[in-house]
Each structure stands twice: as C-alpha cells, then as structure tokens.
C-alpha cells in the first residue's frame, strides 16, 4: 500500500512545531463511514414524516390540459396530491440570471410545472403519502391530459426562424451570447505556416452521485421554522433561497448537512423537486422526504457539457502557436439553472481556451440556447474539460501538422515559469504557474523516451499504443468575481470559529462543507497547526447554518484554500487569546509563550508551563482568580476571502498511455499520470485522491458517459445499465506528482485541487488515441465519448 509519507514539513511560517500542514493524516470521519454508521440524508427519518413522489412529464414539451387526481387520492396511505397551480400559492417561481453575464435571460421556473412541461422528467404533480411505495402507487393513478407540443432539441437549429420559441416572452431561444477578441487574429491565420481547423463535439453527461439527491424538509408551525436536511454543497445559499421563495426570513430556515454521498457540482443547484418538497412540508405542516430514484436522477440531476465547437489554430513551422479561434454552441435545457445560471460553462470555455499558452491572438464566440431537454449547469471542472480538450487536441494536431513532438511544441509555447504575473489572451490573470516544471516532471515520471521506444517496437508487431498529453489551468479559490458581483447571494468568503473546551480540546465550526473530499480533515489540520494541539483534540463542525460561520460551502475548489485559511487564522487568533489567559495565570509575557502539542510552553526553550486543560479550568470555573478586569476569550472567529486575485489559478499536465484494438475499437487504458500545482499542499494524500478521482471522472466523459436523447427530446439511456460509468476493471493506475507554487494571497498559500483531474483527462485520452491511430491513416477523432464505434469510424471500418 502506497501511503504518502507522513512526515512533518520543514519550512516557512507554516512550520510550527507539531505542524500538520503537508502531512497525510487520515480524515477524522472515515471510521464511521467504513462501519456503516454515517448519516446521509437518505437515512434521516423524523416523527410524522411523509414521503413525496412526483408524476413526471413523459413529453419533452407539452401543455398540461388537466390533472385528475380522483383515483390517486383513494390509494391507502395517500396524504395529499398537489399540482403546480396549488403549490404556486406556497412557493414563488425563480429566474436563473446573473447581471455580470450581460444579456443572459431565462424564464420563471416553478417548483412543479404550471400549465406546461418543458422537458421529459419535469415534475407535473406531487403525491405525498406515508411511504414512498404508496406515493408511487398513487402517482400511477394520476391522470394527466397532455397536449404534446413541438420540442426544440437540436441546438444547431434552435435559433432558426422556423424553430418554435420555447418561452414566447423571451422572443427567441438564445439564452446568452459572448464574443471576445484579442490581438490580430486574421493576420495570424493569414501568416501561419499551418492552420488546423476542425469541429469538436462533447456529449452531454451527468454526475451520477452514488447517493441520489435527498432532502427532508420539516416545517414546524409551532416554531415557525423550517429545518431542512439536505445533501447540499452550499447550506447558506440554500437557506437564503428557501427563505426567499417561501416568504420566510432567513433565520426561520435552518439547513443541516451531515454526510453527503457524492456531489461533484450536482448538489450545488436549486432543483424544482427539492423546492417542491420544502413547500409541501410548509403546506402540510409536517416533515416531507424526497429521495430521487436513479431513473429520476438521470432526467433531473443537472447535465453538463454538450458543446459543439468549431475551432482552429495557427502555427508556424518552428512550432510557435500564433492564434486560436473558437465558435461554441451549447444547448442548456429550457431554463437557466438557479441561481448560478447555465451561462457559466460557455463563459468558462471562452475564458480558458488557449489558457496555458503565450499566444496573444484569440477570437471566440459562445452561444447558449434553450432546448426541451433536462437542464444543464455547473458540474465538476465547469468548462475546463471542454476548453482543455479543444486547446490540447488542437495543439497536438498542429504538432502533427508540422512534424513536431507534442512535448516540444508545448515547451515552445507554454508561459515561461518566470513570466509571472502575466495574463492570457482571454484576459485571465495568473499569479504564479509552473507549466514547464510540471511538464519536465511528468516527462521524467513516465520515462517519456522509453515509452516512445516501446510504442515504436510494439507498433512493428501490430500493437497500436498511444501517448497523449494535456496541459491545463484550473480556476480555484474564487473571489466575489464569480457570483457575488452578478447579484447572486452566494458567499465567496468563509469563516471558522475555534473554541477551547473545558478539557483542552478545540471545536472548529466551519462554513465549508464535507462532500467526501476531506474538508473536515483539512480544516482540522489547519486549526490544530495554528493553535497548537494534536489532531485528536480537534472536532470539526460543518453543515449547520445555525452553528457555523456564514460561508459559501464547497464548490470551485475553494474548501481547502479558503476554508483552510479561515481555520488557520482562527486558530492563530485563539492561540493569542489563550496565551493571554496563560500569561495572566503564569505572570508571564504572552509573547514569550507558545502552545505546542496541547501544552503552553516557553516559546524559546519549549519548556512546558501549563496544560490547556488547566488554562480552561481556570478560565471557565475559577475566573475569580484572574486579575480584575481581565476577561478570558476562549473562542475566536476569523473569515477569509481572496482579495488580490479574482481566482487562484492552478496548473498542471496529464499524460495517458493506452492501447487501441483496431479490430474492435476497444481502448485499454494502461497508465495515467498527472502533475499538478495547487500551491501549498495541506494533505498530500487527499490532494492525490482528488486528482485520481477527478481523472477517472474525466475518463468517464472521454470514453463512456453520454446522455443520449432522441429527436423528440426523450432520454433513451437514463439508467445505470445503459449509461456507462467508469468501473474498476477498465480504469488504470494513476501516478500523481506535484509542483508547489503557493499563492501569496493567503498565509497558507493553498490553492484548490478538486477539479484538475477532470479538467485534463478527456483531452489527454483523446490525444493518446489519436497518437495511436495517426500512423494508420485514421481521421482525427474530436468527438467524445470516444466509443469503439467512433474508433472504428475513424479507421474507416464502419
């Protein structure tokens, strides 16, 4: 078993005695998770709790002419059958727009469809019963009179005059358009030695969290309070939204999130059926539970990607890349998702294409259109896999066109490691990246030259293996620039409160949330290190809006970089407070004291002076022995938000080694490497596992995952037997390496690591497949998922 070395780091301001920064300590919550003693929302039951099931539209687009619930209401156990029109009196509709995405428009969306269903799977009626099974029994008896309407399904024709407009009030089906131009693009293309032009297609896919979305809403009419148990990434955001649309004050809503069975961006959005569940609880004055089943998940969990991009690259014979140009078209379903909107992914594609390279000439257009399919929104690595694939596939196609090695063309074009600070052609500002050091490291890790030699010798024997790379950048630690400036009530700052208990342990309440990525461990490490206690003296509290500092939660790779820094600062603040008490007790200068391993010591010699349990005892039980006027403050709160940079960009590079069976089109992944730079590494093992999990999610997109819709807007593979996800046998071992360029925006210097794997893997795998097939005269593959059928098509065999 390869466990990352757990040795104390030896450096810098973070190098406090018994520091846990940089150490692979195990997560505190793993024991309960391995013993079946977790508490996911799907496990929650409450007194008087009822279950809701939804009747969902079988049509992509239909007018609801009538709903007859007579028979359904007679089913044993049924408590209520509620239509959209009835629920509208309890919860107001919403519109998913942000003001900084200029021109972005959407239509009001209801918790349950009113008059019209706009995608297959939209809830049109709710049945509440004593059990889920009884609710489903009754759903089957709800008679709905539909008039099927023409669906809009193809983004390519969504803006044609002949295509119906989904929301008449909006005038057309255009959600959002962005154009961008920098440098002299036409000149660069005219003067290029080679221009490679192609079209990329990225299949729709979805998150497939192992625990489906789950919510229990408990309206207590006596307290006039709504307590919501929800598997969410952003409890405070949801508190605000539930309050707003139910007509409550925020303090009347409490969000509780304990264990969450996977999120990946799926659980950071507003879902109509979850809003309906909360409204039903208020309407019925009792707890109501909704857990999506897998079939519902496929037609209601947000989908992502589904972009068609015409793209081209200009390159000189010496390998200099002189221009990128893209035209992106994406269909996002009938509504822009609330409150983060469905314009962000296309916007990110425009921002990120060409991002690792010093090429100054760039033109981009992105159009986002409505269609009658399930909604699309932000999913792990938002926009990055698309932008990285387009960029990196173009770069390797350009390299092939001029006969240059794919590593060499990157060496000639990546931003130099001493070029920072600098900005990309798209205007992204980089504080400090390490593209060349990362590339050098991965070339060394994979023994590139030996691999090329092996590839050549196997090729001679009719075995076709390929090597592909993908350099990437990743947006992490977002400031208010991401959502706040656009008017969304989504916090970019986060807080931590550290409290000394009466026996010398600390409680750390944090606004960031645990989704399995290890936020609890990282927050504990930061607080323990800054304050000075062993990790077993730290208890972390997350996911309770009544009891944690206000914060944004977990998204955009922010939990460690932002939540960790807040915990670090709060730990330091509490150390100062505790040393003030200790100094008073010891008649010593607090500045001459420190806390190490749970004991107050002389800072210069390390001599033990007084235990934290004794300090706490005096402060809590015998404050009468402290000097008059001295008040012990054994709780400290600090907040943090990045201010110097809108985002802490990270970077890295991935490589894939695979074999293509040219007879069947099957691809065997042999090995995958990733070198990434997330700044200070707080817990190496957790970072590596974020990368590995992310890579596999990206491989899923590259090879398997695809929400397939027919021309009537029907999802035809919405189950786990037909929608393929990566399973253990098909996945390779993944080696992870690091380069460390800390951000100076925080004391810790940590950037995010949650999405790097997903960002780079698809483009890297596609490059490797094309590398394997290129000598066979295959056409270059630019569509994912890259199925055996696509491979055989490229080889001209089907």
């Amino acid at each position, binding site marked *: 078993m390869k466990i990352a070395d757990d040795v104390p780091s030896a450096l810098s301001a973070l190098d406090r005695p018994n520091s846990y920064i940089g150490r692979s300590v195990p997560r505190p919550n793993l024991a309960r998770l*391995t*013993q079946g003693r977790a508490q996911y929302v799907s496990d929650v039951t409450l007194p008087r709790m009822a279950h809701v099931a939804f009747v969902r539209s079988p049509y992509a687009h239909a007018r609801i002419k009538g709903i007859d619930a007579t028979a359904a209401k007679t089913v044993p156990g049924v408590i209520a059958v509620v239509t959209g029109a009835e629920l509208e009196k309890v919860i107001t509709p919403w519109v998913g727009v942000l003001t900084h995405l200029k021109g972005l428009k959407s239509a009001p969306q209801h918790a349950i469809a009113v008059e019209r269903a706009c995608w297959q799977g939209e809830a049109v009626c709710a049945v509440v019963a004593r059990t889920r099974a009884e609710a489903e029994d009754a759903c089957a008896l709800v008679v709905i009179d539909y008039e099927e309407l023409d669906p809009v399904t193809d983004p390519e024709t969504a803006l044609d005059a002949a295509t119906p407009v989904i929301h008449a009030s909006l005038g057309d089906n255009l959600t959002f358009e962005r154009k961008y131009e920098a440098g002299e693009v036409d000149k660069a293309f005219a003067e290029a030695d080679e221009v490679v032009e192609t079209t990329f297609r990225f299949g729709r896919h979805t998150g497939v*969290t*192992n625990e489906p979305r789950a919510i229990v809403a408990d309206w207590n009419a006596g307290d006039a309070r709504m307590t919501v148990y929800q598997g969410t990434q952003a409890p405070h955001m949801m508190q605000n939204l539930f309050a707003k649309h139910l007509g409550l004050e925020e303090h009347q809503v409490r969000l509780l999130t304990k264990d*969450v069975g996977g999120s990946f961006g799926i659980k950071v959005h507003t879902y109509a059926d979850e809003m309906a569940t909360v409204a039903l609880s208020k309407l019925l004055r009792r707890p109501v539970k909704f857990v999506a089943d897998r079939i519902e998940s496929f037609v209601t969990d947000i989908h992502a990607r589904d972009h068609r991009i015409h793209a081209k690259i200009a390159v000189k014979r010496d390998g200099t890349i002189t221009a990128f140009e893209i035209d992106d078209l994406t269909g996002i379903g009938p509504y822009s998702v609330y409150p983060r909107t469905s314009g962000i992914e296309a916007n990110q594609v425009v921002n990120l294409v060409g991002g690792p390279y010093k090429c100054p000439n760039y033109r981009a257009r992105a159009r986002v259109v409505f269609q009658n399919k399930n909604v699309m929104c932000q999913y792990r690595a938002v926009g990055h896999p698309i932008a990285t694939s387009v960029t990196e596939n173009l770069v390797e196609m350009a390299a092939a066109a001029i006969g240059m090695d794919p590593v060499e063309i990157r060496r000639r074009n990546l931003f130099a490691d001493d070029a920072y600070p600098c900005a990309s052609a798209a205007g992204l500002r980089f504080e400090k990246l390490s593209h060349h050091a990362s590339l050098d490291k991965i070339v060394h890790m994979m023994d590139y030259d030996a691999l090329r030699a092996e590839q050549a010798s196997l090729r001679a024997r009719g075995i076709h293996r390929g090597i592909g790379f993908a350099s990437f950048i990743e947006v992490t630690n977002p400031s208010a620039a991401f959502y706040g400036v656009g008017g969304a009530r989504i916090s970019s700052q986060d807080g931590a409160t550290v409290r000394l208990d009466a026996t010398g342990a600390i409680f750390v309440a944090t606004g960031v949330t645990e989704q399995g990525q*290890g936020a609890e461990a990282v927050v504990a490490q930061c607080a323990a290190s800054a304050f000075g206690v062993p990790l077993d003296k730290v208890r972390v509290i997350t996911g309770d809006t009544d009891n944690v500092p206000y914060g944004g939660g977990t998204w955009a790779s922010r939990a460690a970089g932002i939540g960790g820094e807040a915990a670090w600062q709060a730990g330091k603040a509490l150390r100062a407070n505790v040393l003030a008490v200790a100094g008073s007790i010891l008649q010593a200068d607090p500045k001459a004291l420190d806390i190490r391993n749970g004991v107050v010591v002389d800072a210069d010699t390390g001599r033990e002076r007084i235990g934290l349990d004794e300090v706490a005892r005096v402060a809590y039980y015998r404050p009468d022995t402290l000097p008059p006027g001295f008040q012990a403050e054994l709780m400290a709160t600090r907040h943090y938000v990045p201010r110097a940079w809108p985002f802490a960009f990270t970077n890295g590079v991935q490589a894939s080694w695979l074999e293509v069976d040219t007879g069947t089109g099957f691809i065997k992944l042999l090995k995958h490497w990733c070198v990434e730079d997330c700044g200070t590494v707080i817990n190496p093992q957790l970072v590596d596992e974020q990368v590995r999990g992310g*890579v596999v999610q990206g491989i899923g997109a590259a090879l398997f995952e695809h929400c397939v819709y027919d021309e009537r807007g029907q999802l035809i593979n919405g189950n786990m037997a037909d929608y393929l996800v990566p399973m253990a046998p098909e996945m390779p071992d993944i080696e992870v390496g690091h380069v460390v360029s800390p951000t100076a925006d925080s004391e810790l210097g940590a950037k995010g690591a949650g999405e790097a794997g997903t960002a780079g893997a698809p483009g890297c795998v596609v490059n490797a497949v094309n590398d394997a097939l290129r000598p066979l005269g295959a056409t270059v593959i630019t569509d994912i998922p890259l199925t055996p059928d696509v491979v055989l098509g490229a080889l001209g065999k089907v």
Partner: protein
Amino acid sequence: MTERFHDIALTVNGEAVRERVDARKTLVDFLREDLSLTGSHVGCEHGVCGACTVRLDGVIVRGCLTLAVQCDGATVETIEGVSDLGTIADLQAAFQARNALQCGFCTPGMLLTAAELLDAGAMPSREKIREHLSGNYCRCTGYHAIVDAVEAVARARAKHP
C-alpha cells in the same frame, strides 16, 4: 402465492427477527426501513451500483435485487454486524489509512465485496482485485486507492494468516 403480506423469520447480524413484509419489498429496503440498518445503501435500485451489497447465508448479494420475503429462514449480515464482529477490521483500517473512500456511500458494499475476495485466500493481482470489484461503483476515488488498500490487506494476511 397470492398473499401480498408475508411473515418472515430470519437472523440479521446475529439477532432473530420476525416481521410481516410486503411481498414487493426489497431486502435493502427491509433492512433500512424496518430494521433501521442504514449502513446498506440504495444507489441505483437496479443491480448495477453495488451500494446495497449484503451477505445472505454467507454470500454477497444485491439487496435491491433480493426480496425480503425470499430471506425467510436465512442469515443476513450487514456492514453494521460485520463491523461489530471485527472480522474485517484490518480491511476497514486499510481503507482509512489509504483514504480508499471519499463520500463513503459505496464503502459498505465495497468492503463486503472485497472481503469476499480476501476470504478466498491467495494473493490476488491488482487486475484480479479490479475484476472482483467490477460490480461496485465508486464515483469518488477512481478505484486506485481501493485497489491499494485491498492489495495491502491481502499481502498482510498472506504474511500473517
């Protein structure tokens, strides 16, 4: 049988259980809803993801593809019972040390499936481990760490049987 409800008697985690169950109720729903054993999870309800894996008469089965009524007279073990017995404590410790889980939702099923392979003895290759876990979906880890943890336990058990 035309009766909808049936009386069943079985042993669950060493305890005798008598319940009246709906004929359509799955074993995993029975464990979770009737016995409050929420360590077995419901991920897909059509036999693909493996989150509901439990032991039925010593053999792992999908709790979502087995009906509770089929378990009359049977012995069922879930992650809660196996944890209390301590029989997979080494595997659980390896999963923790190697961070072979993130959200943990697949973990009970993954552990019981891996335990079956380890109980068969021999020293499985990484390919064999991956193959044995082929019916257990994990969205978080990418599987590498899980394979590492199972491999480490196999190695340790081979040294100290």
